[in-house]
């Protein structure tokens, strides 16, 4: 009795707030400065990277360092097809190429566990980087490529759409049986298999879905980079950043990685522009402090605060 009238109200709130946020972001280029738009697109990029990483690695506990490989695949798609095909197609191809790469890599290696899987995924970044290098030098005779330039506003909207899709997908997966299967794999893989979960299929498909968004992001963001080569496209920075951001934000909740990526990216922007000579120092201190005092990330901090205010029973574990 108590719950029934509240549920629609909750949905209504969800709907209206989502709509407000969406309208706010959708109309932002109309009134914000052009650099706000540029910066937000970059922050969206980090959110998508972090959230897609946490779609797979969050529940399963498989720490993937392959983000840079998927991002780079998208970047190269953009560099190769950008001049021939319309932008949405290029972004789609970027996503699909990463999706296929993740399917292949996942099918081959998701039997590996723990640190072995992490090492393989990191090796994947190097492997593809050197494959591209070899390909470019020996077959196309070039090394770097210019990427077609797309205006800021278009990049911003494409990133906004990708962000919305990633959040929706992450939300849907968390709420589905599929998400539950992922969770059970993380808790005890053998038990999950015994209860009838096709663990390989679930892992590989989650890995590939998360790679899709990263690839699509690479394809659109490459247009902001003007010039790319294998070193630029497959920069291992993009393998570690999502992991750090997700840990910083906390992986227990959907909003954890989103907050982690947003705060981290914005903080970084402030540090590299206002305190460039101390960026690394401040960054290191912040990381150490958050690992020591925020073991559950920002999300954990917020939950602790909720517990104090509303009591433990309202807090989702």
């Amino acid at each position, binding site marked *: 009795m108590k719950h029934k009238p509240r549920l629609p109200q909750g949905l209504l709130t969800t709907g209206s707030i989502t709509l407000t946020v969406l309208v706010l972001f959708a109309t932002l280029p109309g009134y914000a400065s052009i650099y706000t738009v540029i910066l937000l697109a970059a922050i969206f990029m980090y959110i998508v990277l972090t959230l897609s990483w946490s779609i797979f690695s969050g529940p399963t506990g498989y720490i993937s360092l392959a983000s840079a490989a998927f991002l780079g695949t998208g970047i190269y798609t953009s560099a190769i097809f950008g001049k021939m095909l319309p932008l949405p197609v290029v972004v789609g191809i970027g996503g699909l190429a990463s999706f296929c790469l993740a399917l292949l890599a996942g099918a081959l290696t998701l039997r590996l566990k723990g640190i072995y899987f992490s090492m393989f995924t990191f090796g994947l970044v190097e492997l593809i980087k050197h494959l591209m*290098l070899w390909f470019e030098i020996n077959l196309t005779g070039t090394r770097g490529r210019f990427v077609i330039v797309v205006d800021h506003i278009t990049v911003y909207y494409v990133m906004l759409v990708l962000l919305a899709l990633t959040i929706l997908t992450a939300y849907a997966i968390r709420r589905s049986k599929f998400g539950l299967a992922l969770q059970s794999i993380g808790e005890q893989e053998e038990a999950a298999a015994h209860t009838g979960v096709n663990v390989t299929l679930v892992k590989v498909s989650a890995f590939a879905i998360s790679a899709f968004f990263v690839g699509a992001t690479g394809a659109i*963001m490459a247009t902001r980079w003007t*010039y790319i080569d294998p*070193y*630029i496209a497959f920069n291992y*920075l993009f393998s570690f950043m999502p992991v750090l951001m997700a840990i910083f934000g906390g992986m227990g909740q959907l909003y954890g990685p989103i907050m982690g990526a947003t705060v981290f990216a914005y903080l970084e922007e402030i540090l590299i522009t206002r305190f460039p000579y101390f960026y690394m120092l401040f960054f290191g201190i912040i990381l150490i402090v958050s690992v020591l005092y925020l073991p559950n990330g920002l999300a954990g901090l917020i939950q602790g605060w909720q517990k104090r205010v509303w009591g433990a029973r309202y807090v*989702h574990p």
Partner: protein
Amino acid sequence: MEDKKRLTRRDFLKVAAVGTAGLAGACSQIPVTGKDKEKIVVGMSRPLSGPLAVIGDSAFRPIYETWVPEVNAEGGIYVEEYGRKLPIELIVYDDKSDVGTMTRLTEKLIVEDKVDFLWPASGTSFVFAQAPIANKYGYVLITAEGGATSIKDMLPSLPFVFVTLSFSDWYQLPVLAELLGEKGAKTAYIVYIADLHGIEYSGVAGIEFPKQGIDIIGVKSVPPDIKDLSQIIKEAKASNADVFCCFAYPDQVMPATGTSMELGFNPKAWVGGPCVNFGFYHTTFGPAAEGVLGFTSFSPKQSAAAKTLADKLYTGKPEEAQDWWGHPLYWAGLEIWKQAIEKAGTLDQAKIRDIIATEKFQTVLGETWFDNGLLAKECHTGEIGQWQNGVYEVVGPKNMATADTVYPKPEWPTGGG
């Protein structure tokens, strides 16, 4: 159950809403600096952290950190439009050695900070990425670290971009080939790093060496992260080539030198890429550096101006910090920039661009000008250097040389290492 679900969603949305509003607020409140004509504001995105920091910190950074205080000590740059001298103020951002961050910060400097001028990012691929942006906004960009044959093809479409650094066919390798040809070198073995730099240098050597009667009897590419060069050095030794070239970076040239010593590989000429020209090459190998050839662009023995610059940059500093190739060219680039502003009498980029593109300037190199966006090769005060008695002498071209090329080079010292 439902209680929990409802609250979770609501909490999530609250946080999302607060976060978004906060973010949007914070972003839109970044102050936009207006045109303050008390000073000339110059913006730069530099690799202060990340893998390129080591290059940026030793190449262009010591130049601008010496040059700007010197100009400001005199009151700055005279701009007729304002009837007074304006000091230079630098805004430096850290791009973390990431191109995506560099392009974003470059646009921030232009569209948000509205800097008066843009100074260059570090590295050839960074120059490739930054040049079209500077050009799009009509900002003059005189580059520092970075230059490549392939940028020559781009320059006609980038009228605002000027490249100061010398490179393979501008005009290092033709000079090297001529020097070695004259000394009677007949064969060469080339190792190059599998990237833009290596490909270009080995490609240009493939054209220039045969012109001087030097046959290339072996070419080998190595990946940038190679650690053990002994197989390649053995192969080079077996080829018995007169000339050994290692067109790569310090991470490869340093071990290649060490391995050559270890394996007793003593070609008549040992040529190394960007590495040999730095002071740290000499401090690392000491007397073993004797006779090694590399790239250069000046020597304090050439002129009073060159000596003054070398004293200014290197006196009282460790020898490691010396760079005989890039430093004078970057310095000359800044001198040209200052003189062009003074001649234009305004901070109007287009007017300054036209002056840089068409006029000649007096710099540390002597009379200096740009030739289709490249620092004219006639202005270079050296291309090829050689370590002789612990000094990095200019040996080519001959009309600039401070010493004759030692050929064959002395054998590596044995025993004491």
